[in-house]
């Protein structure tokens, strides 16, 4: 089970990024082994379609669950196609806090209503 969190810098002490497709980095935690790695979001400066490309990147790193601030329509469609579950990061500010909140079952799944993403 691998979970990704949008993060400004590397590691669990980093601030979270408030954008998904243009997030600076993704911190990926393997819940089975507790190994934490941070990957650079190579899609962040792309002129268009950064959301969809970022999802492809997460899929390459075998992410099962993505914790996200908000998703654009393209990223949303891509998450479905890559079969990655999306969860709202809520008002948490630190990557480590999000991880703890996720483990405690405090984070909400993103609910889709008529094509719009509601957190």
């Amino acid at each position, binding site marked *: 089970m691998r979970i990704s969190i949008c993060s400004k810098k590397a590691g669990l002490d980093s601030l979270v990024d408030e954008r998904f497709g243009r997030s600076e980095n993704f911190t990926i935690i393997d819940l089975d082994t507790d190994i934490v790695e941070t990957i650079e979001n190579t899609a962040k400066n792309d002129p268009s379609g950064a959301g969809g490309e970022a999802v492809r990147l997460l899929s390459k790193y075998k992410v099962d669950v993505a914790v996200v601030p908000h998703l654009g329509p393209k990223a949303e469609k891509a998450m479905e*196609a890559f079969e990655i579950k999306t969860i709202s990061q809520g008002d948490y500010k630190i990557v480590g806090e999000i991880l703890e909140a996720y483990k405690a079952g405090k984070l909400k799944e993103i609910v889709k209503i008529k094509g719009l993403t509601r957190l």
Partner: protein
Amino acid sequence: MKIAVLSGKGGTGKTTVTSNFAVNIKNSISIDSDVEEPNLHIFMDMKKPAFKPVYTLYPSIDENLCNLCGRCGEFCNYHAIIPAKNQVIVFSESCHDCGGCKLVCPNGAITYKKREIGQIFSGRSKYDTELHYGLLNIGEMSGVKIIDQLKQSTDSDENIIFIDSPPGTSCATVAAVEDADYAVIVSEPTPFGVSDMKMVVEMLRQMKIPFGLIINKAGLGDEEIYHYCRDENIEILGEIPFDKRIAELYAHGKIFSISLPEYKNLFTDIYKNIIEERRSL
């Protein structure tokens, strides 16, 4: 001869200049290539234009032939096509219709579908001049295709064609000016005007298109634009003074040189300057 009218910054007077050229220069044709926000036809009082749709193509995948090899997704710079787990997703509005994904697909799984992105309107104005403009549908990313087709709708060599270009130095601006014989930059003499104009100057120099400058709202702002033009050896073709009556006429959708006879010769003089500039090249 094609003369493009452009500016770095929006709202500096491209449409004012183009419409005044259109009514003062005989046998001229005007094109509004600012397809996101065309407004020349309002000033020209266009009567009953004929319109034709503009299409673009986007990829469609035959799932029976596709083996999700991923080459199309690697090729596409705009991430319009992304191979996922069990399917290939296509974002048709991001597609620039380059045809590359079909070329790189080893299995022949990609064909193209047609989609309307906007329209081209053609007709005659109240002043009996020929006029064309394009309109990009809301939500579309690129109007370049409409601009290219817009310019093809008038391919006569005998006429003088004025192209009202989109502001800035985007792909759309490049598409509008790329085959122009001469470019007229419209700028206001303010720090913002000069700063944005510099980008246009750089673009035109790279594209090797000769150009001159019309200063609009002259008297406003400061002297920086004059110093810049002297240092850079840029010809000032003419100046439109900062005149409240011009602004009022603009707000009413009127062409000011028709209502204010003292400006009658301004645009024919500027045009003469352009012809002379062209000759001296």
